[in-house]
């Protein structure tokens, strides 16, 4: 590597350090609240169209995977736009950091779903609990670069996940198990970010 490339590497390294010391502001409260409402709408759809989820696991998965994909797309699009507006000069670094923090939990969630459904028959009732516990790990991983109170949302997802697992049978597949957990959880995150934004504005 010649010296010019080394200099570019040093500049990138400074930018990375700055990004690591910066609170991430790419998550928009309105969009997060919207994904909470989407989760409640999905729960209503499940209650109407898939009331017996234990015997229609494919339909159950379709509802929640589509909901998760739409939510991720909405959050991703807004994150891209907000980060470019709010983290001028290091937007790419901030987005990469946010994705790096959350992506492992998404990957693990997908793999756990595949393994339980493919190799461990009769354990599909564990899915919502596992998803919530794994999601809580993603929230905890992201907490370092978000307002401190976001920790409460991580605790919420962990508790709802553990409660779902504690049910120990197909009751865990109730529409409200997922709907209430993600509906309230996403609203909680949105509220925390909104409050932090207002505090930040007041602090000047």
């Amino acid at each position, binding site marked *: 590597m010649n*010296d010019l490339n080394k200099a*570019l590497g040093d500049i990138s390294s400074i930018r990375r350090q700055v990004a690591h*010391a910066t609170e991430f502001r790419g998550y928009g409260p309105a969009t997060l609240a919207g994904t909470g409402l989407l989760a409640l709408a999905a729960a209503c759809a499940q209650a109407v169209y898939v009331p017996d989820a234990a015997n229609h696991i494919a339909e159950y998965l379709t509802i929640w995977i589509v909901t998760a994909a739409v939510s991720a797309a909405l959050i991703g699009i807004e994150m891209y736009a907000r980060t470019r507006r709010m983290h001028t*000069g290091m937007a790419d670094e901030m987005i990469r950091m946010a994705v790096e923090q959350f992506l492992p939990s998404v990957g693990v969630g997908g793999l756990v779903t595949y393994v339980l459904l493919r190799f461990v028959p009769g354990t599909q009732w564990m899915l919502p609990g596992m998803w919530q516990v794994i999601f809580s790990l993603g929230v905890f991983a992201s907490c370092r670069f978000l307002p401190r109170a976001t920790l409460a949302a991580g605790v919420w997802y962990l508790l709802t996940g553990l409660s779902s697992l504690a049910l120990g049978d197909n009751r865990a597949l109730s529409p409200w198990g997922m709907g209430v957990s993600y509906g309230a959880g996403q609203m909680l995150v949105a509220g925390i970010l909104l409050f932090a934004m207002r505090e930040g504005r007041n602090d000047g």
Partner: protein
Amino acid sequence: MAEVPHVEGRFAYEGLDRVIHERARLSVLTSLITNPKGLAFGDLKQLCDLTDGNLNRHLKVLEEAGMVEIVKTTDRNRPLTTCRITGSGRARYLEYLATLEQVVKDAAKAAEGSGVKHRLAPSRV
């Protein structure tokens, strides 16, 4: 000789802020931007390898430019000076960094075009 496209101000590099473009001040700001909660005067002095007098002089320039704030308090009855980067300082530093990156990219492109392996002079930063 290769033809150079003449775009007005292509190499003006307006973002190379004179206040920041000084080794010690660049060093001070880099230390402060990576420690947004601030640094004690003594820690900053060590990180930047400056003397008390030099650091004071550069902090004064940065404070007058509104890029850092200096808070004087006491800790266990001993005076404690904490230096923090301001919002404006942070924005100007990031703009500076982007321009600096552009300068190096332009230089790298020119070096690539000429087919010569350019080496920068040894730097103390």
